[in-house]
């Protein structure tokens, strides 16, 4: 199930919130676990067994590692096996066909493709499970003795299919001791509505333009740039919208997840961009790959190696295709250049140039990210540089009809709306009734418009007569 669906908003969510709030505290976790598994099974009725397997396996490894705390050698062997098994699960279900396709390029025989469909969210829940076992190994987190509570941590529906990747230590306490409050619920509702609007109103609509343009051949340069910008907005609002919804739902249910996005498009360097984009993933790779590899503690050569390994893996995590690996390395190289070269004279570059330069690098990054076929990628790059003319009527039509949307998207990608909301709240502190009315109009209005767009997406007039 996805958040941006009528069945989630109008059937699943009211039911789970009602039961979770009304139930005695000791029933809350079983209720949440049941609904979380149901949530996953709705989209993956078979693979839910895979997730349950992953839960039980990592639960047992975590407990065994905790029991072996006095025996460093045994602990290490257990951890190694856990990591191998987790990566094997990910490898089989996410990367099998990628490896087969590439083997076919070098082998004299043709291996048949395995045709394994990617289980939704496997990259997220596998990484969460690994973070738990590693944290227990390092004594960074307490062991969880109840398999149902551990299952809740892995399957918790707000962050299950699109993150953020929640580290066990973040929610360890709240799994067994969380409080629900009106203040948090109200904030959670607002955060959820903002996230839903980002996904349904901003990402989906501009994504429609991108899907049209990316499927068109021989785009003019203006159209191609418009398309790339549309895609950059789509991917940001889609992803950060999901994180907002997860964080908001967490608040309503009494959990506090860490922020996952921090206005990445206002960054003025690539380093800053990655401190603001998908923070939970960067943190994961830093904590569980970069630092264990030695980080920056063993000289420049090792540091360069470690950075490239981290970015190769980051790229590969995003998808089983070469363009994602390239995309990761692309960022690895820019980060190295920034770290070792640009940093010396960074302060001398005017802020505007730094900002525009960063956005251009990110934009080309997204073009690389978008096309899994090299031919399509080069065709699109060609269009960007004017291989099919500078501008045409299609471009003018799209520009004229999307102009207002683009202004709204650009504004929404900055902290300005949040700042405006904060100022307004402070100004109206003495007039709570007026503030309540404004908040209701805004958030309920946004929610209603989201419903309208979701209903409309299934509106399908059939032009021919019924037969």
């Amino acid at each position, binding site marked *: 199930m996805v958040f941006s669906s009528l069945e989630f908003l*109008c059937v699943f969510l009211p039911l789970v919130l009602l039961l979770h709030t009304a139930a005695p505290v000791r029933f809350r976790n079983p209720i949440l676990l049941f609904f979380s598994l149901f949530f996953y099974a709705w989209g993956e*009725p078979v693979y839910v067994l895979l997730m349950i397997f992953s839960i039980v396996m990592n639960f047992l490894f975590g407990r065994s590692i905790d029991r072996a705390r006095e025996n460093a050698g045994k602990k290490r062997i257990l951890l190694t096996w856990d990591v191998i098994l987790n990566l094997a699960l990910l490898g089989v279900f996410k990367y099998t066909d990628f490896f087969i396709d590439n083997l076919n390029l070098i082998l004299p025989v043709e291996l048949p493709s395995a045709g394994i469909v990617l289980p939704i969210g496997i990259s997220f829940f596998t990484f969460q499970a690994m973070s738990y076992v590693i944290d227990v190994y390092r004594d960074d987190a307490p062991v969880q003795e109840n398999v149902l509570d551990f299952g809740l941590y892995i399957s918790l529906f707000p962050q299950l299919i699109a993150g953020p990747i929640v580290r066990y230590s973040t929610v360890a306490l709240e799994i067994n001791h969380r409080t629900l409050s009106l203040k948090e619920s109200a904030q959670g509702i607002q955060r959820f509505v903002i996230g839903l609007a980002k996904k349904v109103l901003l990402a989906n609509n501009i994504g429609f333009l991108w899907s049209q343009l990316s499927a068109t051949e021989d785009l003019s340069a203006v159209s191609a740039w418009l398309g790339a910008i549309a895609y950059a907005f789509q991917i940001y609002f889609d992803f950060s919208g999901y994180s907002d919804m997860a964080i908001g739902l967490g608040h309503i249910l009494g959990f506090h997840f860490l922020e996952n996005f921090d206005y990445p498009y206002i960054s003025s360097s690539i380093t800053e961009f990655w401190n603001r984009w998908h923070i939970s993933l960067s943190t994961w790779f830093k904590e569980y790959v970069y630092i264990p590899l030695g980080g920056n503690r063993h000289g420049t050569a090792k540091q360069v190696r470690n950075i490239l390994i981290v970015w190769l893996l980051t790229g590969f995590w995003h998808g089983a295709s070469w363009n994602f690996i390239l995309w990761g390395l692309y960022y690895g190289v820019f980060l190295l250049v920034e770290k070792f070269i640009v940093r010396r004279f960074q302060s001398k570059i005017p802020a505007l140039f730094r900002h525009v330069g960063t956005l251009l690098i990110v934009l080309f990054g997204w073009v690389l990210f978008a096309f899994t076929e090299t031919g399509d990628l080069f065709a699109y790059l060609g269009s960007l540089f004017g291989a099919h003319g500078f501008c045409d009527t299609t471009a003018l039509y799209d520009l004229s*009809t999307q102009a*207002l949307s683009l202004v709204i998207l650009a504004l929404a990608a900055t902290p300005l709306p949040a700042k405006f909301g904060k100022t307004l709240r402070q100004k109206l502190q003495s007039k709570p009734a007026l503030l*309540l009315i404004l908040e209701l109009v805004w958030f309920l209005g946004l929610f209603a*418009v989201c419903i309208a767009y979701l209903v409309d997406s*299934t*509106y399908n*007039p059939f032009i021919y*007569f019924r037969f």
Partner: protein
Amino acid sequence: MYRKIFISVFAVFLALLSVLTLALPKKEFSDNENRALAVFPTVSAAAILDGSFMEDFSSWLADHFVGRDFWVSVKTVCEKMLLKTENNGVYSGKDGYLLDSFDASSLLHFDENLKALAAFEERLRTVCGIEMKTIVAPVAADVFADKLPPFAETVDCGALFAQIAAEVDGFIPLSDLFDQHRDEYLYYRTDHHWTGLGAYYAYTAFCEAIGQRAASPQEAMIQPVCDDFFGTTYSRYGLFDGKNADTILAPDPAFCGGMTVQKDRETTDSIYSPQKLSEKDKYLYFLGGNDSKVTIQTENHNGRHLLLIKDSYANSFLPYIVRDYETVTLLDMRYYKGLVPQLIEQANITDVLFLYNLKSFAEDEYIPYINFDE
């Protein structure tokens, strides 16, 4: 206290949506979408395991969502406020016109249809000695291009017509004629069809091509039969504001003369179906819909038997010509599964007219079936 109110209002709103959606009686058919709405899926282990139950449940919930048409119009209003001029493939144009878009993505089958039509025409001429006539109706987005929003693109229809004229003998061009009358009510504002007037001009061009005098509008007694028609582009655009209703014009039944109309499932004595005027899709006034094959026997005994291979544009054209033939046989190739050459022999066909609008001629995948003879 204020937080409590905020949360309660949200809770009540959500509860209302879900309870009303689940509890209210369900409609079986959507007039605006012109399709049957989803029925509640049957629960079975297989349907749950392959996920089809969940998909069907989603469709069912969306199809029966409380206030469905209201939500659709809310979306359309938002799109308008964002200065978007198109919604669901329909442009909001000048003078209240909702124009069906016609872009390159519609040209899927144009080339093969043209080839099939040229082959069919040649075969009729050489084998059967019948000189087929072809009318491909211009589309509103082209004739009324000046009513489109700025920069909205339409396929180069002139080039398409030139191609048809070059390859098909007996093609009757309408572009210039329609262009001369572009200030008139040639197309519905809220529907993708031509009006009774557009069809009338096509009729005059047809008469000229076959060397016959066309009846004047007064002789044909063209009259309005209803003035509250909201058609397909209105449904697709989804604003539902009740403005710019269309008037359906048609020749008086007396002009058409007496006849027997044999449809797929019924026999009547008129082209017109007045009972359809009380339903949503009032264009069904003409012939009551699209049957695979309709045979009309008139009171004219001149020995001329017309085969009309057509889409729905022909339905409002038919009243002008029906009285000139002893029989008219209409075939809708989307549904007709018989063989056309055999039919021509069996029905003693003397005249053939092929009538499609340009968009359906470019999109339709069934036209090549006209050549199948086994």
